[in-house]
């Protein structure tokens, strides 16, 4: 499998979009740390970028890459290779290249300017989000044969996870404000990897005091070892389930 991933990786690392993405992240990170004298403020601004831009780029780039590699995947299918192997190699190639863009673009500045717990939480969340959204994009692009529909669906998913979901959560919380919702909001956070990542980092930043009783509960939960395990576990599920679904439908698919 690694044989194939290596060449996919070679190809993507020389891709102009990935290079531009790396430079963009690098520029943003450096300017954040340069402009703010307080490094935790810079981390907060960087967090916003990570939570919005990373999922978007992962979804759109993966989708476009999949459709552009369609004929190449066909050629691989004519070789003595199993379908699972082919899709996993493509996945590994895309995932590793997006991750290396993130590590160079955000990882290096964070390690240089603020290598503390929050910084590492930021790197963990960013890597997890990249992997999760690459998986999701693979699933949606394997499912739809039409390129335009695939990209449209990827954008729709991004809107849902980055914007609409928060609105829905607020609406629910408002509607049931008479009931104790603290435990329930914990569950809600698990249903959106972006939210989960945000809470995970925020609580490392000591701003949870501003969030009242819920914040205290969160701090209690996410601050502990269980919280870290919980976050890692949920992120892993978010990465593995779409990937498994993608493999399942790729094995049955007609090319």
């Amino acid at each position, binding site marked *: 499998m690694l*044989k194939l991933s290596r*060449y996919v990786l070679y190809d993507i690392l020389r891709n102009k979009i990935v290079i531009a993405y790396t430079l963009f992240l690098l520029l943003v990170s450096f300017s954040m740390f340069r402009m703010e004298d307080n490094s935790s403020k810079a981390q907060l601004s960087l967090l916003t970028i990570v939570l919005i831009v990373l999922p978007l780029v992962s979804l759109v780039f993966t989708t476009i890459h999949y459709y552009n590699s369609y004929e190449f995947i066909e050629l691989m299918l004519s070789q003595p290779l199993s*379908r699972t192997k082919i899709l996993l190699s493509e996945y590994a190639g895309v995932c590793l290249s997006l991750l290396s863009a993130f590590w160079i673009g955000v990882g290096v500045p964070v390690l240089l300017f603020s290598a503390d717990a929050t910084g590492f939480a930021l790197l963990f969340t960013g890597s997890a989000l990249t992997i999760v959204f690459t998986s999701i994009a693979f699933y949606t692009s394997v499912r739809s044969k039409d390129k335009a529909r695939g990209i449209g669906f990827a954008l729709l998913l991004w809107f849902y996870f980055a914007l609409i979901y928060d609105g829905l959560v607020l609406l629910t919380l408002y509607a049931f404000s008479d009931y104790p919702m603290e435990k329930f909001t914990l569950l809600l956070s698990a249903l959106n990897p972006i939210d989960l990542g945000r809470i995970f980092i925020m609580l490392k930043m000591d701003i949870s005091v501003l969030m009242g009783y819920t914040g205290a509960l969160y701090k209690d939960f996410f601050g502990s070892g269980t919280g870290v395990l919980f976050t890692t576990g949920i992120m892993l599920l978010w990465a593995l389930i779409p990937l498994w679904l993608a493999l399942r439908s790729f094995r049955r698919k007609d*090319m």
Partner: protein
Amino acid sequence: MIRIEEISKKFRRLQALDHISVRFTEGQVVALIGPNGSGKTTLIKSVLGMVRPDSGRIFVKDQPVSGDPSYREHIGYMPQIGRYPDNMKVGQLFDMMQKIRNREHTDTDLLYKFNIPAIYEKPMRTLSGGTRQKVSAALAFLFDPSILILDEPTAGLDPLSTEILKEKIQKEKKKNKLILITSHVLSDLEELTTHIMYLQDGKLQFFKDFETLQEETGELRLSKAIARVMQGFEPASEWIDELFDVHPKGKQQDKKK
């Protein structure tokens, strides 16, 4: 070598393949012909395991296509459109294939005749359509496979390269290989084919060897012979007329009969 048993495939409403059974053995050069959308590519893709038939079974060297992918070691495939990763270099592509197959390049004949080592350092995206077609052809023959499947091999190639490719096919034919070719350019197939398989609307209309066809129709040339047979088929005749430019008078007389 390839045994196809009663395969059917439906894409939404379109019946792409309709209960097709056929047997190909070594030494045959089979020309797969039929109008656009008649199921030629679907048939080829089914043999390669890219399309999963709704019913029926396919065996390649007695190995079922639906199982272990190792049967594809025996197949060299040249696709209709060859597109490769944009930034991959030509040399890397050949390297990768060698690693995938875990074998040395055994048949570098076309590789050198098309002068591909000269462009090893070029990225794939800079190649013209014809050059990419040459790369595809060289890849198909690279591991000396006993079955060759060529989908529109001469489309986009210049006359000189077409000649080189035809010579190569001729040479492989003598090695007692099974070669499947689809093409719209019947004159290209003329000197190569031993058998003709005609598909229409997903149905197998006939599978005959060239000599029988020549005898039956009294025509020596492939295009004429097929045109003659097809005049019997009403739905096909329009396409055939267009393709071979059969004299309209002939058709009218036929109808009067």
